[in-house]
């Protein structure tokens, strides 16, 4: 089904009225849009009749919108010009009727949810460089998820009837997919609701299940807040936490680490790819040390999963966290790998889902999306690794070259293929972030001013940065849909943004 010429021209003509404070004559619009003025006059007459346009007389005569463009939907405009219908052409009462009705209602729903105002803003340049915070859902992932909302998969995976077992079979096949990717057994994969939940389960679950052996836990000084704050909470419960320092690139200090392990150490939890500075830790060495000393080793691979190969059959890892929304899957799904035989107590008690490790009705659509997302990412690994590392290095090189007093944070080579973190002297990150946002560029910062705690990033401080250097840091994270022209747009805008705030700053070079 196509929109008629009337609707297409009508929408195009109306977008002209969005930019005008005063009204616009038919002549002006017809000239600009190459639409015959007679035809346009007819379209406008219909829109006027529907109450969407009003006529103004006088020197500045012409048409203008009768209402705020935020309150006019595309549905209203198109309905005023034609009656788009999705119907079975045979007018029969066959079984496909409900399908046509669904399409019709979906169609109207979409048109009624978009306002004229959004047409204007969606044309503005928008460059998303915050993929490390979250990613858009890949269209293929969404397609894989949609059937899960069907009646046939509505059952609870714990139910014995057909709908329950259909859902259960799907979840089990997802488990097998992840087991294949990580080279482990399917029953070692537990689905959770978030990486934060997986990490909380590990810290608290291992602590409480192994406290007869000891109460000492080791983490690094560059962990994500969910590991750090779980550890801090455990301190209030009588556990002892050691934080291992990192070098200026963010790599774990292995000598200090070895010396810190004690007979009563029960868990080591070290982030794999750092979420802020992108540094990738050496899982092989850390895992070997833990194995030799008989301590459980957990790694938070939320940022690195599918972005760098992880073969658990070759690594001494007992627990691993991975997340869906960092790899173009939906939010609300994550996994926890628990090696068979690991002593861990669940965080959530209830109906005994996920082999008793995580009670909660299984979030089937999200898990299916997560699985599809992981499969796509693994399949595209070589291609994305190449494309994004090249873009990353291009961006780093050019920022450091064009902006004086800029400094790369994290490791120059051992870093996630999509992470760039740079400190700029004499400026503050939140203001840079907001200014870039005005240019349509979305990034993130380690500045205290953008956090609710008003503390600068503990990760940047751990690498030896002074607080003022941490305040002036920005993280750019690239992703599947990033293009060279987007990166070039950033390279064009960034120097002038930095310069603007350096001029306002009381500190001069």
């Amino acid at each position, binding site marked *: 089904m196509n929109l008629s010429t009337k609707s297409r021209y009508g929408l195009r003509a109306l977008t002209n009225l969005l930019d005008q404070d005063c009204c616009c004559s038919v002549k002006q619009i017809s000239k600009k849009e190459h639409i015959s003025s007679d035809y346009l006059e007819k379209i406008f007459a219909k829109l006027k009749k529907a109450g969407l346009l009003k006529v103004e007389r006088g020197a500045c005569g012409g048409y203008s919108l009768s209402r705020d463009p935020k309150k006019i939907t595309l549905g209203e405009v198109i309905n005023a010009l034609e009656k788009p219908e999705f119907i079975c052409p045979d007018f029969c009462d066959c079984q496909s009727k409900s399908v046509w009705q669904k399409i019709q209602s979906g169609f109207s729903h979409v048109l009624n949810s978009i306002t004229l105002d959004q047409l204007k803003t969606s044309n503005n340049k928008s460059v998303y460089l915050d993929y490390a915070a979250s990613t858009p859902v890949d269209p293929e992932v969404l397609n894989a998820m949609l059937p899960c909302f069907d009646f046939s998969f509505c059952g609870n995976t714990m139910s014995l009837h057909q709908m329950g077992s259909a859902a259960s079979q799907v979840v089990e096949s997802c488990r097998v997919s992840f087991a294949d990717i990580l080279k482990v057994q399917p029953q070692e994969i537990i689905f959770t609701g978030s990486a934060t939940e997986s990490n909380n389960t590990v810290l608290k679950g291992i602590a409480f299940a192994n406290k007869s052996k000891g109460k000492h836990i080791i983490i690094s000084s560059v962990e994500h807040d969910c590991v750090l704050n779980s550890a801090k909470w455990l301190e209030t419960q009588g556990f002892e936490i050691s934080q291992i320092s990192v070098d200026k690139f963010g790599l774990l200090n292995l000598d200090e680490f070895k010396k810190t392990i004690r007979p009563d150490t029960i868990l080591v939890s070290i982030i794999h790819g750092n979420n802020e500075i992108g540094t990738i830790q050496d899982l092989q060495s850390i895992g070997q040390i833990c194995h030799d000393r008989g301590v459980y080793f957990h790694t938070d691979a939320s940022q690195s999963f599918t972005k760098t190969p992880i073969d658990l059959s070759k690594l001494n890892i007992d627990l691993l966290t991975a997340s869906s929304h960092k790899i173009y899957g939906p939010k609300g799904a994550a996994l926890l790998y628990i090696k068979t035989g690991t002593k861990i107590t669940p965080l959530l008690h209830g109906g005994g889902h996920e082999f008793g490790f995580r009670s909660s009705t299984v979030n089937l659509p999200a898990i299916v999306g997560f699985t599809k997302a992981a499969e796509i990412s693994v399949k595209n690994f070589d291609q994305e690794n190449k494309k994004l590392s090249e873009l990353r290095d291009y961006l780093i090189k050019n920022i450091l070259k064009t902006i004086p007093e800029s400094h790369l944070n994290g490791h120059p080579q051992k870093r996630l293929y999509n992470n760039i973190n740079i400190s700029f002297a*004499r*400026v*503050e990150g*939140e*203001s840079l972030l*907001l*200014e870039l946002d*005005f240019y349509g560029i979305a990034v993130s910062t380690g*500045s*205290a*001013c*953008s956090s*609710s705690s*008003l503390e*600068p990033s503990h990760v940047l401080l751990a690498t030896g940065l*002074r*607080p*003022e250097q941490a*305040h002036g840091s920005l993280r750019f994270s690239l992703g599947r849909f990033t293009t060279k022209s987007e990166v070039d747009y950033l390279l064009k805008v960034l120097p002038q943004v930095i310069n603007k*705030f350096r*001029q*306002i*700053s*009381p*500190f001069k070079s």
Partner: protein
Amino acid sequence: MYTQKVLEHFRTPHNFGSMDNPTAVGQVGNLACGDVMKLYLKIAKNKKGEDYIQDIKFETLGCAAAIATSSVVTDLAKNKTLIEALKIKNEDIIKALDDLPAVKIHCSLLAADALAEAIYEFYQKNHQPISPELEKLHQRITVCQTRLNH
């Protein structure tokens, strides 16, 4: 998170930049905390012979709220007598910006403090009497600064 007013002042700040031969300067804040504000005042006598702020400029390193509060305090203080300018409180700054998020209230305090510090410096340099309130305020700001700088 920010009001339209804050964003306006942040995007196009009023009266920013340094000043040649300022009569007085007030600097508050600390690099470690991420906000440093510097106000430059040019003080002259009005027709009644009172000291007033003929010109004012700011330089700020900090977040959007720090820049917006600096910008708005220069608007509020310009052309006011020193007596009037000292009456500008952080609540007035917040009001002029149509509100600030709770975590950014300290930025409005900094802006009010910077103005008070500049006026204090002027009184001190010119051996003019300093009210007990202003003296107390200056002591609080200095203590705060020293604590932060160590």
